[in-house]
């Protein structure tokens, strides 16, 4: 148990270090390379406002003090006000976070729910027509740009068939204090296309991973023994094969969650989904820099958290990586 705690503490320390380095990079980008007043103060501010902001940012102080101040402000979530919206940039982004998370999590769920069975199917029958078609589909899913697939989805399902809405989020309901669209059928209809679009790349990845892992596992001795023992194929696949697939799968799904959030920038822009990715693009287009800086800080924090969680999950799931809980007893004592 103690070993586990030490391990967690060490991982936390590493994450804190990465965060510190990244904050330094963001600081250098904003304060040392750029002109912080041009970046963080609205272009149509009065001279008094500019002077006040310069004081607040501590621009007359030495650079290391400016960094400490920046760090302190960032920790308090105070990263300047959006030029376009007049609200604190951090609050603006956090307000959009639930929409992005909802989209990203739905996409991940779609990818898992479809990807594992399809990958298993292709792995169990690698030479069959269906297996080959699944693989061909996954290659397409890999190489097609997300925005292109999004366009095709809109063209097919919204414009030609008219089944699903092409943009927006639809009505949201408060679920456990978070505004989500999963509460109503109209919300579901709005969520389906963007989630599918975002899921596609991940789906292709999971199919490949599961298929390769399945083919690999079927050759292993433990599967042969399980067969020789006369176990039902369903049990062999469901327990012996899947269990060994779980670890790489969780790593990839976990690590890829960050890239789902990154790619939601594209999907949100296409489907006008009001998440933080769309906010970022809108902000870049109107040069609303405080929001860009705030987004950067949040995304770095998010990535570090995801990496940390995946690391810890890994240790939890793979007993071999766990620090030994008890000192081994010497024989005879």
């Amino acid at each position, binding site marked *: 148990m103690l070993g586990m705690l030490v391990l967690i503490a060490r991982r936390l320390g590493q994450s804190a270090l990465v965060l510190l380095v990244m904050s330094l990079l963001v600081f250098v980008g904003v304060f040392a390379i750029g002109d912080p007043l041009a970046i963080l103060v609205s272009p149509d501010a009065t001279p008094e406002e500019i002077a006040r902001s310069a004081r607040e940012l501590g621009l007359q102080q030495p650079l290391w003090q400016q960094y400490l101040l920046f760090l302190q402000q960032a920790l308090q979530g105070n990263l300047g006000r959006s030029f376009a919206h007049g609200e604190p940039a951090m609050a603006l982004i956090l307000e959009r976070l639930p929409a992005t998370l909802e989209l990203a999590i739905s996409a991940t769920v779609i990818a898992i729910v479809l990807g594992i069975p399809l990958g298993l199917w292709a792995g169990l029958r690698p030479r069959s027509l269906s297996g080959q078609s699944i693989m061909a589909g996954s290659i397409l899913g890999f190489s097609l740009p997300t925005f292109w697939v999004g366009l095709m989805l809109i063209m097919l399902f919204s414009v030609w068939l008219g089944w699903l809405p092409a943009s927006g989020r639809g009505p949201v309901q408060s679920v456990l204090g978070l505004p989500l669209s999963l509460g109503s059928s109209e919300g579901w209809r709005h969520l389906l296309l963007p989630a599918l679009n975002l899921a596609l790349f991940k789906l292709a990845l999971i199919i490949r991973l599961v298929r390769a892992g399945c083919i690999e596992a079927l050759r292993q001795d433990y599967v042969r023994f399980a067969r020789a023992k006369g176990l039902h194929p369903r049990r062999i696949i469901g327990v012996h094969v899947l269990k060994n697939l779980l670890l790489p799968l969780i790593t990839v799904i976990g690590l890829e969650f960050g890239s789902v959030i990154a790619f939601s920038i594209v999907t949100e822009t296409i489907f006008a989904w009001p998440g933080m990715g769309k906010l970022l693009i809108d902000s870049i287009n109107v040069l609303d820099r405080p929001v*860009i800086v705030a987004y950067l800080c949040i995304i770095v924090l998010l990535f570090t958290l995801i990496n940390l969680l995946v690391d810890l999950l890994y240790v939890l799931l793979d007993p071999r990586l766990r620090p030994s809980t008890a000192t081994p007893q010497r024989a005879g004592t």
Partner: protein
Amino acid sequence: MSARELLRGFQRSHLAMAGLSLLALLLLLALAAGVIAPQNPYDLAQLDITDGRLPPGERLGSGALALLGTDDQGRDMLSAILYGLRISLLIGTGSTLLALAIGLTLGITAAWHGGWIDALIMRVADIQLSFPAILIALVLLAVFGQGSDKILLALVAVQWAYYARTVRATALVERGREYIEAARCLALPGWRILLWHLLPNCLPPLIVVATVQVASAIALEATLSFLGLGLPITEPSLGLLIANGFSYLLSGKYWISLFPGLALLLLIVSLNLVGDRLRDLLDPRLQ
């Protein structure tokens, strides 16, 4: 492996051969765009706004046939696609070659010197690769502004780490081989061993990575242009053409987005098919 052997390797797979032919055709079309395109889409004097949004197969005011329709500016889509293909290919291969040169230099330096230089280069590559390429490119474009040179810079910045990693891994293996030892025994100078003996043997895996990377660079450029952060509208790449038609998609004017989209699809798929086959042929572990 000689070029003839490679070609024979391609001929054994119908799919790879189809990809190669398609790629050759697209390259040819892009190169000959200035000759075969019915119209110069960059010359605003040739455009007539009253020709705007004509469906495929209609005739322009000048009597010329708009085989794939026109966009909102009255630009012939076929011409725009041919020129756009050229720009996408130019940016994709240009950025890939630049990133390849940088990654090759850094990777081989890391493997040759080892020690803290190796550690520094590889840590930077690791940190960079832990973030998705699109995010890094977006941040760079947000900080440095937009334009052709900026997008080239962003594409190089997101790619170099792949090459550095691939080259380093290969060079570390090759460095321990007997021919390097033999060269050392001949007391050849270090730079000569590095350039004449080590470098050529690190190239095959790089070529494979580069082919697939050209495809993803083109896709990334198209994505960035689609988001409005890429190339200027005066010389649209495929991504920008698609973005341009996006607003008309919902009103049923599909051709402005669909046809450049199909061109992009063919380009990316053919590059991937060729890259896959090259990997099969050049990677000795797969044979």
